[in-house]
């Protein structure tokens, strides 16, 4: 793997940028691996990378039915933050936050992590109490989160309408300064490149259509559109399609899959210095480095695998965006698209063992798992390599839906990205 450096960038620029090599090997599936990862999104690729780098497990294949990063990883609005309410969640997302901070250097690949600050707005008394409760809980856990008055909100994001006479006036906001964004494609590509260099096979256009079990009931391989592959350990990281893949092993999941959509405007000059989210009126926005306003909408009302959201859902979000940011009212929207998100009853992920020996699952990140990508891969790799959860993902079992030990971020934040 050729390393990126200042000198290599100059050299390639002088050569007209025509001689860049492929960043990862195109692999054909082999007959057998030590670990097969189902799903080549950011979480699956990160899992493979950390399996190879931290646990020396290098006979690993990542099987992706389309192209890597073509699922939710490449479709999300890239908001990163760790100010979740419950200690278990805060620890999980903070684990990822710590990794984001050194990720470009560790991967030698610029993932464009940009800690520009994420502000979550409060529009009524209830929001203020909930927001302040989050701030206090996070500060007790050593995670930065601070409360801003409406005046401070306006200073932090000058294009916000902070006047009192709008339908949902801004009464304050919780700000996490280390929160921000990263470049989603670069995250998938960076992990793929790093994993491939360590020997991991990244196999695209390879859909898993069956899971094989041996006489003891343990997994022993997968059936794919590119033939059967033997493996004693299988990690399912298939986001919105997890229920479908797990059904191949006869495991029912606490998941419902919903379309979630986003849209971007035509590019404009830098106007927005941070990320703004409003759970109450369901709108969030940031500006990409290309200048587009990146806007996230809500999920559709019913479960679906259609990968397109309904128009009335995005119209609802745009009404709120136009009220909060009057300056964007006349922008044209360039593109809109949908992803399929896997939502759990408590809005917390499932990362760990399953009732089937050798079968592991990492799912349920729903509307907000991009921010967790490096941390999720890191702890899931530990789980697969050792057969036991890492302390950080230990509470996020599948079994919590039997024991009742839910991690109820659903009540803490109706919408969470």
């Amino acid at each position: 793997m050729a390393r990126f450096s200042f000198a290599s960038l100059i050299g390639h620029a002088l050569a007209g940028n025509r001689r860049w090599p492929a960043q990862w090997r195109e692999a054909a599936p082999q007959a057998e691996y030590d670990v097969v990862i189902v799903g080549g999104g950011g979480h699956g690729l990160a899992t493979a990378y950390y399996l190879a780098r931290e646990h020396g497990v290098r006979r690993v294949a990542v099987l992706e039915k389309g192209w890597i990063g073509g699922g939710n990883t490449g479709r999300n609005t890239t908001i990163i933050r760790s100010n979740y309410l419950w200690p278990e969640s805060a620890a999980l997302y903070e684990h990822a936050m710590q990794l984001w901070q050194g990720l470009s250097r560790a991967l030698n690949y610029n993932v464009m992590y940009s800690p520009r600050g994420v502000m979550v707005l409060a529009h009524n008394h209830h929001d203020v109490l909930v927001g302040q409760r989050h701030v206090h809980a996070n500060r007790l856990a050593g995670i930065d989160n601070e409360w801003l008055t409406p005046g401070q909100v306006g200073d932090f994001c000058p294009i916000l309408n902070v006047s009192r006479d709008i339908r949902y006036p801004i009464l304050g906001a919780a700000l996490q300064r280390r929160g921000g964004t990263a470049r989603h494609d670069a995250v998938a590509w960076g992990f793929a490149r790093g994993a491939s260099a360590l020997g991991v096979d990244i196999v695209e256009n390879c859909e898993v259509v069956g899971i094989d079990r041996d006489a003891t009931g343990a997994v022993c391989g997968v059936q794919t559109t590119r033939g059967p592959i033997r493996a004693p350990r299988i990690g399912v990281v298939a986001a919105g399609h997890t229920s479908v893949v797990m059904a191949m092993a006869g495991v029912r999941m606490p998941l419902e899959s919903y379309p979630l959509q986003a849209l971007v405007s035509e590019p404009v000059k830098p106007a927005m210095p941070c990320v703004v989210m409003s759970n109450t009126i369901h709108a969030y926005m940031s500006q990409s480095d290309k200048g587009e306003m990146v806007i996230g909408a809500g999920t559709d009302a019913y479960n679906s695998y259609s990968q397109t959201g309904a128009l009335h859902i995005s119209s609802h979000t745009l009404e709120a965006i136009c009220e909060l940011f009057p300056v964007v009212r006349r922008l044209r929207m360039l593109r809109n698209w949908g992803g399929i998100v896997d939502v759990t009853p408590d809005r917390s992920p499932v990362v760990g063992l399953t009732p089937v020996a050798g079968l592991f699952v990492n799912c349920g990140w729903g509307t907000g798992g991009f921010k967790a990508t490096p941390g999720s891969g890191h702890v899931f790799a530990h789980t697969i390599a050792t057969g036991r959860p890492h302390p950080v993902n230990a509470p996020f079992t599948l079994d919590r839906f039997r024991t009742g030990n839910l991690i109820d971020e659903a009540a803490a934040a109706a919408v969470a990205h």
Partner: protein
Amino acid sequence: MLLIHCPFCDMDRPEIEFRHAGEAHVARPDPATADDAAWGAYLYLRENRRGVFAERWRHVHGCGRFFNALRHTVSDRLIATYRPGAPRPDGGA
């Protein structure tokens, strides 16, 4: 936006008149005999099917009543709607 046939009002109405109410035909286990696994499954495990799926809707801005529907979860096409208690119609796989 879906166009949904309410089997009580006997009219096709736009989706925003309705509220989705999750998977249909989820039977409540007997509290006297159900163990934690059975309760957990009843409360939280879902079929989440990719294909023809039986679900509940409520006509909140109409008659206010719950009913069932068969919908294909890839095309979102509604195949049939039927009253609660009625058997699930054959919608293919």
